[in-house]
């Protein structure tokens, strides 16, 4: 026997916590048919019966025309689930009941869960659940999302209700053609229901001392930036052990696999696939997943505590100029650390178009890897103060790129009429539920790992074929042949075949840039090893510097640095964007834009610099 239920509730009603605790690891993330909205499904077993749980997309109501609202309404109407569990935040009961008022019109079996009962109690608020149940005609369950006993009660209730379902007996709020009158009718319906069930004391709101500081225009912004920087460091600390393990894979596997396969007389081509490429794919994917894990823990914490909402409040004005809204600030700051982190941090945004736009804008932010290679390369050609100027130039162009990206893509992704300006609640500060945060971060990381493995393998094979040469000499690789063949074209963009090759490998992984330069200029390292072993075999930069600065002009170096910085971020970031957005079309579109942008920029920088240098 099986049953199926759906969870319905406004943002901040604790829906995802309940979903995660009900279903545990038995979750599946997909897409709603034909839509870019994420579909979360899971299941749990109670007394031998399996129940599937659908987490309906979060929205404040059901009457708007957003994808989320249409999906939810259609899903409930179609009867795809046997029971809808409606969640409300008891500490903000009146406002939160709006979802029930919307649901009432759909007339389907339901139960009402009064979540955050603990917070409501702390506020001195009393709710008579039995009286409410009597009025509504459906069971009402007081609930505390952190109490495991309450989940048992909920499971039992679900199982009982599937046998003898209840529908609302109170007539739904009268429908009005005019939106204004219609919402009034819903809130009147709520007031009527709550009239003798609870008492809402009208009180003067006093901001906490901490919030008073957090909401100050300048100080608050500085605190936000500081907190996100600390958060990034913490995310790095969390990921480090996992990444360390991942990093050992190529080094550990290379020699034994190489020996074993060579001993079997396997073709060297196949040998290096298994000894070099596959271990590196594993390594890349593990580092990616561990980063997603770290970022999700930190973001989960910032979101649950209510910090994210304050940061969004602070930066809304600035970001709305880019077609985004305040919530995009954290992923953007995160992008200075790692684009992958930034891309998956956009999860906090509820509108798909704006989320995709935010990811495209995050791509423009140079990550920590770029900041680690640019000074090295710049130092080979320029003095320290010129290097400073290069970095400042890059920072300035970050802003320009963001504006261009927003101009190019916002019309499609976030048209002004669909643009949701920020209307959001600043929830009271909560304690974080660590168990839940870690669990959820683990699922997300595991999900990314599983799904990215394929993408990373595919692109790795492609690059592998391009960079393969029988004797390890660069001149015999396909990439060299292609590179020198199209050199007349790349010259126009300011790059010779060597720098162009490094530019291409930078699209694969930014860390590969130095290794590739080493391979093409020194010829003592195969291009393939440079790309796949960049992190384990650092290049001798001093020597490389003297060779490079005599081989290419400073103007070309400058063009190359700009091109590399503003090219597509890296394979892993690309693949994360695709996994997070569920849209191959848009990921490719944005990627093409960035490649063109990098080439045009390189061309401009080269030809201008050429005049002066």
């Amino acid at each position: 026997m099986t049953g199926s239920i759906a969870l319905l509730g406004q943002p901040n009603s604790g829906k995802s916590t309940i979903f995660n605790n009900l279903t545990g690891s038995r979750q599946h993330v997909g897409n709603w048919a034909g839509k870019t909205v994420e579909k979360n499904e899971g299941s749990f077993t109670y007394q031998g019966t399996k129940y599937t749980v659908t987490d309906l997309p979060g929205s404040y109501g059901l009457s708007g025309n957003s994808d989320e609202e249409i999906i939810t309404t259609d899903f409930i109407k179609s009867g795809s689930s046997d029971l809808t569990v409606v969640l409300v935040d008891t500490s903000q009961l009146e406002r939160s009941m709006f979802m029930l008022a919307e649901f009432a019109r759909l007339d389907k079996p339901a139960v009402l869960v009064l979540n955050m009962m603990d917070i409501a109690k702390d506020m001195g608020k009393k709710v008579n659940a039995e009286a409410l149940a009597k009025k509504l005609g459906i069971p009402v369950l007081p609930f505390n999302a952190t109490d495991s006993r309450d989940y048992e009660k909920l499971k039992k209730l679900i199982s009982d209700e599937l046998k003898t379902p209840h529908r609302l007996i109170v007539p739904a709020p009268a429908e009005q053609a005019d939106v204004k009158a219609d919402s009034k009718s819903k809130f009147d319906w709520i007031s009527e229901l709550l009239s003798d069930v609870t008492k809402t004391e009208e009180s003067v709101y006093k901001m906490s001392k901490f919030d008073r500081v957090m909401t100050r225009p300048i100080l608050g912004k500085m605190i936000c930036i500081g907190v996100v920087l600390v958060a990034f460091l913490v995310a790095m600390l969390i990921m480090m052990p996992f990444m360390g393990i991942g990093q050992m894979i190529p080094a550990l596997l290379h020699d034994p696999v190489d020996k074993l396969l060579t001993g079997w007389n396997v073709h060297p081509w196949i040998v290096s696939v298994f000894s070099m490429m596959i271990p590196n794919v594993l390594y890349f994917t593990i580092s990616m997943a561990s980063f997603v894990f770290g970022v999700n823990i930190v973001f989960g914490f910032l979101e649950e505590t209510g910090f994210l909402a304050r940061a969004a409040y602070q930066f809304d004005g600035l970001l709305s100029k880019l077609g985004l809204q305040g919530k995009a600030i954290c992923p953007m700051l995160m992008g200075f650390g790692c684009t992958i982190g930034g891309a998956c941090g956009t999860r906090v945004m509820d509108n798909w178009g704006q989320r995709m736009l935010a990811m495209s804008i995050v791509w423009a932010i140079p990550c920590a890897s770029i900041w680690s290679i640019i000074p090295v390369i710049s130092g080979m050609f320029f003095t320290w103060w010129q290097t400073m100027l290069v970095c400042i130039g890059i920072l300035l162009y970050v802003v320009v790129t963001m504006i261009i990206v927003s101009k190019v893509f916002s019309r499609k992704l976030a048209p002004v009429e669909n643009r949701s300006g920020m209307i959001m609640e600043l929830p009271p500060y909560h304690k974080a539920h660590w168990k839940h945060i870690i669990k959820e971060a683990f699922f997300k990381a595991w999900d990314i790992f599983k799904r990215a493995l394929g993408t990373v393998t595919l692109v790795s094979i492609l690059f592998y074929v391009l960079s393969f040469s029988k004797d390890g000499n660069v001149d015999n690789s396909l990439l060299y042949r292609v590179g020198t063949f199209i050199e007349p074209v790349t010259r126009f963009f300011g790059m010779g075949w060597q720098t162009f090759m490094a530019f291409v490998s930078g699209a694969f992984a930014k860390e590969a840039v130095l290794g590739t330069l080493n391979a093409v200029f020194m010829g003592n390292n195969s291009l393939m090893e440079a790309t796949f072993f960049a992190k384990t075999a650092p290049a001798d930069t001093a020597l490389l510097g003297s060779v490079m600065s005599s081989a290419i002009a400073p103007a070309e170096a400058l063009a190359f640095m700009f091109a590399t910085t503003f090219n597509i971020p890296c394979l892993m970031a690309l693949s994360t964007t695709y996994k997070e957005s569920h849209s191959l079309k848009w990921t490719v579109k944005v990627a093409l834009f960035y490649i063109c942008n990098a080439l045009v920029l390189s061309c401009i920088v080269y030809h201008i610099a050429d005049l002066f240098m």
Partner: protein
Amino acid sequence: MKLTETKADMQGRISAVSGDNHFMNRISSIGITEGTPFQTVRNDKKMPVLVYLRETLISLNRADAERIEVEKQ
């Protein structure tokens, strides 16, 4: 007066909200409807307006807050 013209700690009622259906749906689903008592918590230049209503602290971007008329109580 407009919500954007209120001062911190002012209490009053929402007197009129105007906008297209999309806006009206969003604003009313979060609880801002005509007649709702509110309190302005913070209103700084170039920052979203912070209001407290229906037991909730709500942050509203300025463009949207412009479309909300309120009266002092």
